[in-house]
């Protein structure tokens, strides 16, 4: 073993045993532990949540086509180790013995669904249970609604196209039914084997060919890369979990971003604590370096000794940090086991690599500047104790630290935007703090003048240290800011998720309510303690022409035999509504909403607002004249606005919203919704009995499922919050501890000079209180800035001011930092003066 190695090892061993390395080790252990447990947990949680979202796609990814898909494309997926399933769906008429209905016909192969579950009911709208089975060939499962409309029972026959199928089950839920309620028809699930015999997918019919894929992420990506060049965007589309815009998809996506944010903040926390610890470590080693240099140690030898030491510390810190991270993660998983299905069977290497990388980069880059200072300590310090390092460059210090943090964040998140926002907030905070500390010095001269009491002593120390210890003040502020960001972000985000589906969200919808039934239904429901929501008027109308050019209006197979030419139509009657008020989750993307403006239109032409996707599909533009047939009447409208509609919300949405003036002559039916507790489900039959012509949509299960997921995600986010708060608090403690040691010398002198314990204690507490208030206030300001940027740029949320934290942060900052200071001070003052002086040596 070389001299250098054995010296470095010996120094490391003794210092570790004597507790000299506690602070820097604690910093590394904490950072590695926090980053590991956070990213390990969030990775597993993301896996679990993605699994849940995948169930809404019935697979990890879907490939949709309007034409039959080339067999070889699906077969190729097997070469990428992907599991596949297929579905063909079309809108068709289903016939009972007497009645008929337009249905969403879905023919699936035996592998369907790859993810998620099918639920069936024991009777229409009856008790549900999960099944792994599918209808057998020759059979069909029908949506509860169809039993009502077609007037059929299980065991009866249903006629679809040329085929006759036996109804063998009541279909309650399928994974990829979609979230929209009103533009879907009741589903009929049947086997692919029977599809050909129906003859409903002939030329000209609108058929969707869906291929499902499941496999690991990289295989899916590789397959998509193979498939992408072959895709024709007119015909084909690819959907992955990340494209999910449902409430679940959005919650999961923002939760993922939150986890990422929390992990990034943990990295910064780690960096800050390591920076503080490294600075202190370096200062404590000025003497040994000067002594060794005096005794003849060369520059390279000193460098090797200390780089080795840092390496030992980093390795030990990383190992202990990994152990700590695994323990925390185990505890969290154990605590969450009942609520979230986070599997421990899958081992993720990425978090471990990230944690090790973070520990190593932080330990090396943040100790770079303190080490450079250490290396440049002149041997003359052995004679002249006041001589410090020859090197001092705040630019280098902040530059190195800043770029290290930024690189770590960027490398970890692979998201330039989120990294840049956090980094810019950090820079703003540091700049603001520097200005503030200058201000404090000026203010302190005024406030701290007069005879020497605790208050004056506190100010004197702040004045003297304000610039020297700016790193410490900044680290307090950054820590508090990060904790605020994580806390406020979590509060806002969970509040917004919950707002999507508040308690009492309607879970049943009623359509086809006539004017005559409207009041009777209201009062009947009221008598049974069920409150009915607003009634939306609806007329069924057929969209027949654009600018007097007729569009195709085929509805059924029979209509489709006519050759297709000219413009596409909707293919069925549309629900038309009228309103002057723009609905929630609707956004005007072109033109102006007719309720907000008056436009002069030709006589007999009324403004209409068209949903933007349908406008795209039907090639409708602003200013086009659209003609509708409503009953025997013709209504002419002009497109005055295009709307983007979020179809994933649990509310009625419409393709066409017409000016109320156009519709006065028509007798509408109404749509309404109500909330009924899941436990009262059995009352449904009784509630609806007097209104047999009214159709019921049951979204209770779906809403419960959504709420369940949102609750799980919120809970997970809460745990992450607690983890970050715990890590942050420990960092604060380490910081106070470190700065307390710096004050040791002064305390010893004051004590020796006979200063009362109460005076010293009060002065230290005041000093920390002042620092805490300043740090808290600066943190609140920086928090506001970061939140604004994060919410508007990353989380697509509405930004909000958090004035309460402008008070809470300084108060809590002062209380926590002051308390920690008092505890640290109490520890020092409990030593007698001799012990204090000896500690200084």
């Amino acid at each position, binding site marked *: 073993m070389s*001299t250098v190695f054995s010296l470095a090892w010996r120094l490391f061993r003794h210092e570790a045993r004597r507790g000299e390395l506690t602070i820097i080790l604690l910093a590394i252990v904490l950072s590695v532990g926090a980053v590991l447990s956070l990213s390990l947990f969030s990775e597993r949680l993301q896996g679990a949540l993605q699994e849940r979202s995948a169930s809404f796609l019935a697979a990890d990814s879907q490939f949709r086509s309007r034409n039959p898909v080339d067999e070889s494309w699906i077969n190729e997926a097997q070469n990428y180790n992907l599991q596949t399933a297929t579905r063909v769906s079309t809108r068709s008429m289903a016939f009972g013995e007497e009645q008929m209905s337009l249905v969403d016909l879905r023919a699936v192969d035996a592998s369907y669904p790859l993810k998620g579950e099918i639920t069936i009911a024991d009777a229409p709208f009856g008790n549900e249970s999960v099944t792994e089975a599918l209808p057998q060939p020759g059979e069909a499962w029908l949506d509860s609604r169809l039993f009502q409309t077609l007037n059929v029972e299980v065991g009866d026959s249903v006629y679809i196209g040329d085929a006759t199928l036996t109804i063998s089950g009541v279909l309650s839920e399928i994974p990829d039914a979609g979230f929209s309620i009103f533009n879907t028809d009741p589903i009929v699930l049947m086997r692919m084997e029977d599809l050909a015999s129906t003859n409903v997918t002939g030329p000209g019919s609108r058929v969707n060919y869906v291929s499902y894929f499941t496999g690991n992420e990289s295989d899916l990506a590789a397959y998509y890369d193979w498939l992408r060049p072959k895709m024709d965007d007119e015909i084909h589309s690819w959907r992955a979990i990340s494209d999910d815009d449902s409430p679940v998809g959005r919650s999961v996506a923002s939760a993922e971003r939150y986890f990422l944010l929390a992990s990034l903040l943990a990295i910064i926390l780690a960096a800050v604590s390591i920076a503080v610890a490294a600075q202190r470590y370096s200062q404590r080693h000025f003497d*040994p370096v000067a002594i060794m240099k005096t005794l*003849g140690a060369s520059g390279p030898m000193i460098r090797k000794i200390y780089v080795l030491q840092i390496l030992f510390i980093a390795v030990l810190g990383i190992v202990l940090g990994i152990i700590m991270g695994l323990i925390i993660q185990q505890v969290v998983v154990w605590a969450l086991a009942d609520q979230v299905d986070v599997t421990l069977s899958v081992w993720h290497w990425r978090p471990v690599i990230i944690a090790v990388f973070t520990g190593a980069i932080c330990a090396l880059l943040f100790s770079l500047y303190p080490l450079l200072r250490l290396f440049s300590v002149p041997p*003359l310090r*052995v*004679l002249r104790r006041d001589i410090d390092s020859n090197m001092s460059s705040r630019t280098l210090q902040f530059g190195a630290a800043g770029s290290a943090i930024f690189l770590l964040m960027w490398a970890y998140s692979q998201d330039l935007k989120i990294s840049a926002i956090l980094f810019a907030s950090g820079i703003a905070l540091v700049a603001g703090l520097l200005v503030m500390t200058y201000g404090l010095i000026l203010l302190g001269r005024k406030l701290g003048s007069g005879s020497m009491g605790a208050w004056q002593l506190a100010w004197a120390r702040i004045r003297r240290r304000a610039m020297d210890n700016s790193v410490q003040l900044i680290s307090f502020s950054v820590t508090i800011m990060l904790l605020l960001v994580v806390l406020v972000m979590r509060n806002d985000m969970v509040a917004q998720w919950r707002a999507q589906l508040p308690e009492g969200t309607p879970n049943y919808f009623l359509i086809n309510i006539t004017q005559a039934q409207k009041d009777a239904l209201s009062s009947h429901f009221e008598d049974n303690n069920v409150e009915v929501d607003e009634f939306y008027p609806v007329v069924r109308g057929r969209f027949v022409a654009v600018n007097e050019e007729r569009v195709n209006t085929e509805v059924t197979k029979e209509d489709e035999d006519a050759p297709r030419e000219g413009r596409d139509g909707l293919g069925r009657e549309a629900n038309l509504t009228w309103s002057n008020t723009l609905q929630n989750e609707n956004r005007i993307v072109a033109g102006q909403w007719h309720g907000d403006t008056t436009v002069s239109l030709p006589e007999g032409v009324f403004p209409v607002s068209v949903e933007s996707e349908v406008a795209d599909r039907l090639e409708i533009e602003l200013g086009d004249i659209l003609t509708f047939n409503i009953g025997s009447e013709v209504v002419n409208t002009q497109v005055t606005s295009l709307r983007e509609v979020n179809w994933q919300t649990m509310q009625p949405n419409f393709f066409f919203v017409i000016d109320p003036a156009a519709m006065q002559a028509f007798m509408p039916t109404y749509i309404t919704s109500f909330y009924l507790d899941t436990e009262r489900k059995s009352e449904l039959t009784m509630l609806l009995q007097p209104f047999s012509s009214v159709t019921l949509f049951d979204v209770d299960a779906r809403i419960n499922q959504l709420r369940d997921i949102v609750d799980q995600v919120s809970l997970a986010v809460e745990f992450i919050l607690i983890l970050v708060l715990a890590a942050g608090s420990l960092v604060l403690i380490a910081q106070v501890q470190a700065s307390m040691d710096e004050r040791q010398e002064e305390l010893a002198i004051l004590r020796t000079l006979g200063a009362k314990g109460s005076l010293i204690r009060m002065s230290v507490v005041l000093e920390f209180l002042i620092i805490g208030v300043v740090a808290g206030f600066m943190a609140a300001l920086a928090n506001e800035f970061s939140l604004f940027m994060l919410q508007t740029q990353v989380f697509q949320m509405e930004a909000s001011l958090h004035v309460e934290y402008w008070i809470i942060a300084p108060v809590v900052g002062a209380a926590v930092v002051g308390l920690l200071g008092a505890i640290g001070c109490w520890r020092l003052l409990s030593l007698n003066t001799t012990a204090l002086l000896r500690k200084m040596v």
Partner: protein
Amino acid sequence: MITTKQITKTVTTSEGQLQILQPISFEVKDGESIAIVGASGSGKSTLLSLLAGLDQVTDGEIYLDNEPLHSMDEEDRAQLRGAKVGFIFQSFMLVQSLTALENIMLPAEIAGMKDAKKRALKIIDDVGLAHRAHHYPNQLSGGEQQRVAIARAFIGEPKILFADEPTGNLDEANSHKIEDLLFALNKNVGTTLVLVTHDNELAKKCQRQLVMQGGALSEPAADASSLEREAG
């Protein structure tokens, strides 16, 4: 052993250049012991730092064992110190995280001596601290710490030993023990000794005394009364 020719030291302060050493020339012979005395701020520690190669002269020449210290860089001077120089300081300057024995071993290890531990064990016994070998500096009394420092200074059998107020932090009884130890070892090893002190008694034990005053060095006639006056 030491030759200085017109060495000066000037530092830059906020009020301009300040010359803290006037041109100084003197010689110290092999095996000789000299004491540099003077009031606080007279420049004696500055002179010691230049002689030991801890700092650089502004002007003039210093030869230590015929090596030109004034033209060497920090690395070369460190090497020279490691090979030929020992130090004892007023504040002991022990590495707090190493034990007494390891502190003594330190210069020998830095110099790459294979038998560092063996030498250290012998010398710690010589200074009477074998039973304290594994104690850390803050577990030792001031006198014991200085004995460790002396042992550390002698482990490499240096050609020249610089001592800066070696008894400055000690009580009288401990001071005497340390002085005796210092001179005994000095005699045994045959080291040249340069000692900076306030203490006339200690200075008198050296073969020659030099007086620093206002940055200038003088060598008074060896009568005690004038020496006492100068040292104040």
